[in-house]
């Protein structure tokens, strides 16, 4: 079973502080990490590989330094890694990113499944997973919290050469609970935190990551229309970025438990009755 995992390198906001004066993120010294949701995607892919065999290929689109994220993914059990990087991709919105990644995936070759994190923690759009599925015209299951079953059979039909035929049954998280959805392979899933607990890199994995060859794809390597790449290919444009007014701390209620509780009830009851 061949699986492609799309990941993104993001700033590690768990170590980020807010500058109390400017109310902006203090970014100096902030490390880059693999987007946390993508770590679950990598883990799930590696687990499936361990069960069914095959290869896990990691793809990322980003600046040259995103190579670190790819090496980390290899240390976590992935087999191959592809860096999609070119100045021509700069300024891509989710449309252009989905397009570029789908073209890169076509270049990588046959796959049974694509796994993405549900969203990246810097942009929070959750659009690129479904976007890639749309460009590749494959079915999708978003917000997967559990894979219930995968059935794989092989076929000798020439159009399936190199891939398996099969089905996946998965639980898709909703506001009220979950849907159980079945999809033929190949398909794309996006995963949430609940799906697994990612392992730590093994020593062997770290050694392998050091030596691993990272394949690089530039714009000219892709079967892509240059007008649809980067800023030029992005329908949306950012016109303004601003810092929202800081939320100020308010009143501290003091006194005995009885008094404080009474005060708070008085302050809130009008809001609740509405």
């Amino acid at each position: 079973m061949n699986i492609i995992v799309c990941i993104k390198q993001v700033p590690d906001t768990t170590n980020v502080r807010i500058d109390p004066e400017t109310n902006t993120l203090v970014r100096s010294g902030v490390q880059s990490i693999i987007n946390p949701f993508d770590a679950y995607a990598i883990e799930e892919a590696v687990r499936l590989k361990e069960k069914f065999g095959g290869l896990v290929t990691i793809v990322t689109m980003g600046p040259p330094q995103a190579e670190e994220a790819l090496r980390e993914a290899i240390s976590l059990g992935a087999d191959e890694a592809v860096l999609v990087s070119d100045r021509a991709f700069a300024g891509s919105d989710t449309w252009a990113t989905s397009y570029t990644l789908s073209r890169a995936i076509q270049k990588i070759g046959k796959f049974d499944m694509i796994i993405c994190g549900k969203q990246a923690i810097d942009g929070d759009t959750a659009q690129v997973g479904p976007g890639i599925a749309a460009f590749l015209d494959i079915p999708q299951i978003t917000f997967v919290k559990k894979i219930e079953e995968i059935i794989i059979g092989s076929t000798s039909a020439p159009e399936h050469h190199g891939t398996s035929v099969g089905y996946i049954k998965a639980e898709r998280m909703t506001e009220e609970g979950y849907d159980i959805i079945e999809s033929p392979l190949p398909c794309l899933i996006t995963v949430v935190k609940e799906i697994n607990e990612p392992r730590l890199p093994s020593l062997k994995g770290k050694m392998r990551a050091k030596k691993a060859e990272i394949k690089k794809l530039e714009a000219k390597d892709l079967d892509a229309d240059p007008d649809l790449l980067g800023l030029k290919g992005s329908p949306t444009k950012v016109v303004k970025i601003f810092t929202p007014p800081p939320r100020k701390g308010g009143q501290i209620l003091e006194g005995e438990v009885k008094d404080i509780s009474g005060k708070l009830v008085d302050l809130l009851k009008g809001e609740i009755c509405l």
Partner: protein
Amino acid sequence: MSIKVINEKCGGCKLCIKSCPFGAIEVVNKKAVIDLNKCTLCGACIESCKFDAIVLTKLSPTDIQFPNKFGQYKDVWVLCEQKKGVVQSVAYELLGKGRELADTLGVELCGVLLGEGMKEEAQKVIHRGVNKVYLVDSPALKHYQDEPYSKVLIQLIKEYKPEIVLCGATSIGRSLIARVAISVHAGLTADCTGLDIDKKEKLLLQTRPAFGGNIMATIICPNHRPQMSTVRHKVMKEAVENKHHKGKIIEKSYDSQVYSSRTRLLDVVEEIEETVNLTEANVIVSGGRGMQSPENFKLIEDLAKALGGAVGASRAAVDSGWKTYSHQVGQTGKTVCPKIYIACGISGQIQHLVGMQSSEIIVAINKDPHAPIFSVATYGIIGDLFEILPELTRRFKEVLKR
């Protein structure tokens, strides 16, 4: 578009470094240097520069095709999400905002409703002030499924050419709309918290938080139609119901190919665990590490029940197994903005704050007076939550007669 630093003007003051949300600027030999691999051309540094030393070449006139090219695109559409045959409240919120946008543009407001047996619901949508409802009624659309829903919506957009399409940033909306935007080559902005019209260019101005709400970005879509946005729940005000309002229902149906789906929905499971739906709750009572044990969450549940609210939890509480993941508020959980958010025994790490800091009123109960949660709290109580929570529950029950 391009950006550059005019070295003669640059004073090396480093203000631009602070302003850059992407960490793309360094000062080398007292001159600012922009790392184009990191820069997204957002322009935040330009406003910060006191020497006018950074120049961003904006979109050239040839980059923007003037809206009259899009003359055939008109009207504001709201996708009215339904579950079990009931239109969800987020749709009514979008219709409230959609009416404003449509009036500013001088166009019609239309609802789009997909489902089975939805005639009555379509009438309810009309009562919220729309001019038209596009209704596609089929057993294949009874429950949400990615492919039939996206194919139907693509057909409708291609036929009727709306200039704006709004949709809730729900699990359904977020799965559906990205597929649609790709296929119709539209610009799509996720999770908007503000929508407005640039009256001169007749463009939709979409404002959304990024980096967990620490910066806000305003986004336009000048060269593609429709302009599409998903909008967070509880941000816009619901359209007022008026039973005398009249509108047209336009029924459409498609051949089976459009309704077909490669995926199959086998079951819809509702987890009947208290009132989990955090994103719709007006009041949320949340517990963190300070709750000390899963049993103590009973205190949170009691207060939530007394207030008719939902139960939330910090990542620490979820990782300890005290509450399930569906309760988690924060960066790797849910983003919520209820009217009242009561944080109990939650210190207020940034990952938690980004998930709840847009709540209208925040109450923090914590025994550590230095807990960061107090810096965002409307009302702070420094004290022992095991004493305070039962007292609050008792008093609210009394006042609210629950």
